[in-house]
């Protein structure tokens, strides 16, 4: 009987949290479309998410492209398909690796800091203070982060695409002995716009999810330092899981279109 009660309680808690998240998302999105807009805060978030994430995204995609070139070369050499290395690198980077890895890295960097910042504001009553000063916490805190996440991650991924392909090129041309110009030609030969576009659509969705999870967990944090710590962890874990799940969904949409 206790076991059933525990399962029931867990299920109800789960549904409550899902409902709360859906409501939070709906309210946040509705605030995105209504003035006032805090352009200065949006600008600050654009710089925080975009500019300051460049090194981590660049490094991640650079080494991923390099490893991918090495791995695919050593694998494809077994059936004399080394010439496909450039194509495999560019397709893997643009369609999957750049958006997913950039998403996961930004979730760790930005999602955590959003949850910690908003969570601290919650437990120190700064969010209540915003309300009493006739300012909507959604408009002031959540909307700038959602807009920045939605718009900056595709730009980061586009840069990550270029850096990742460049990493593959470096290894291909200077370590594996490919002719540089033929490597570049192979890179372009089978690349279609939809490969890049699907990656950018993913990046947009991931950016939104990262910001949403950071804001949601921060906004609902309770109980001082421990609560803020839990919010930070939950935001990174939930954003990462949602990135992986939604990645499958979006890939399925593009592959089966």
């Amino acid at each position, binding site marked *: 009987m206790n076991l059933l009660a525990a399962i029931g309680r867990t299920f109800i808690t789960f549904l409550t949290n899902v409902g709360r998240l859906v409501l939070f998302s709906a309210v946040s999105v509705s605030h995105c479309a209504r003035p006032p807009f805090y352009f200065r805060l949006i600008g600050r978030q654009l710089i925080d998410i975009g500019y300051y994430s460049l090194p981590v995204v660049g490094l991640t995609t650079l080494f991923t492209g390099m490893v991918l070139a090495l791995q695919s070369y050593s694998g494809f050499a077994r059936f004399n398909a080394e010439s496909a290395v450039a194509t495999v690198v560019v397709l893997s980077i643009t369609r999957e690796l750049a958006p997913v890895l950039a998403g996961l890295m930004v979730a760790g960097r930005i999602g955590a800091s959003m949850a910690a910042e908003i969570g601290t504001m919650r437990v120190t*009553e*700064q969010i209540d*203070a915003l309300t*009493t*000063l*006739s*300012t909507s916490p959604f408009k*002031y805190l959540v909307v700038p982060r959602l807009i920045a996440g939605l718009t900056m991650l595709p730009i980061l991924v586009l840069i990550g695409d270029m850096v990742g392909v460049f990493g593959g090129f470096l290894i291909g041309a200077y370590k594996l002995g490919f002719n540089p110009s033929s490597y570049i030609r192979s890179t372009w030969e089978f690349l279609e716009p939809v490969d890049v576009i699907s990656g950018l659509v993913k990046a947009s969705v991931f950016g939104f999810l990262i910001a949403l999870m950071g804001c949601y967990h921060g906004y609902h944090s309770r109980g001082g330092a421990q609560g803020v710590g839990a919010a930070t962890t939950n935001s990174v874990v939930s954003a990462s899981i949602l990135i992986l799940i939604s990645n499958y969904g979006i890939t399925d949409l593009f592959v089966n279109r």
Partner: protein
Amino acid sequence: MTDIPKLQFAGVQKRFGSNRVLNGIDLEVMPGESLVVIGGSGSGKSVMLKCVLGLLSPDSGSIKVDGREIIGTNGSERAQVMRKFGMLFQGSALFDSLPVWQNVAFGLIQGRGMEPEPAKAIALEKLAAVGLRDEIGDLYPAELSGGMQKRVSLARAVAAQPEIIFFDEPTTGLDPIMSDVINNLIVKSVRELGATALSITHDMASARKIADRVAMIYQGKIIWQGPIGEIDRSGSDFVDQFINGRAEGPIHMQVRAN
């Protein structure tokens, strides 16, 4: 003085799960009056305040400001009511990402759309009124002592010239001298503005200094109210025990979770 209370609670109830925190609050604050609600920890003081500010929704009852119901209002109607309010939070609740002057001017700039220049001038004037120099305006809240943060918070609460100011435990965490300084500033600010004040505290020295009238809350109900001068002869054992700080009496503090 008009007959319409500036702020009126009638039968306000609020529960969290099975815990009934507000059990039918009935209270009126007249225009220009300073009412202090006293009560122990967990008696429902803060929840009562959060219900007025719209941070919590009561389960039932009515809260009126200037005779108009505010429960259930939202959007522009709620915003209009909020413009009448100023609030000093227990922990100051200053925005740590903004310098002091922007904290004070926040309600003017963000809430009322004032340009930063005139808003800064008002902020510095309000800071001066609470005894803080112009240079303090450029510091960040983390660089200030607790007492200075409280002063900044007071300056922020009065900057937009509210009609009703709420004070949540204004002297908690301050030494007795700084507490008295803050109490004096509260009295001065409220008088200068001609505002109505509702404070909650368990600091009797503070209550005696800033109150015209006192109400005591116990187990989510107002059990006594009267002028501050009558508090020592209230005839209520609950009030006597509380104001004299005795462990023995009708109020039993919960010292362990059951």
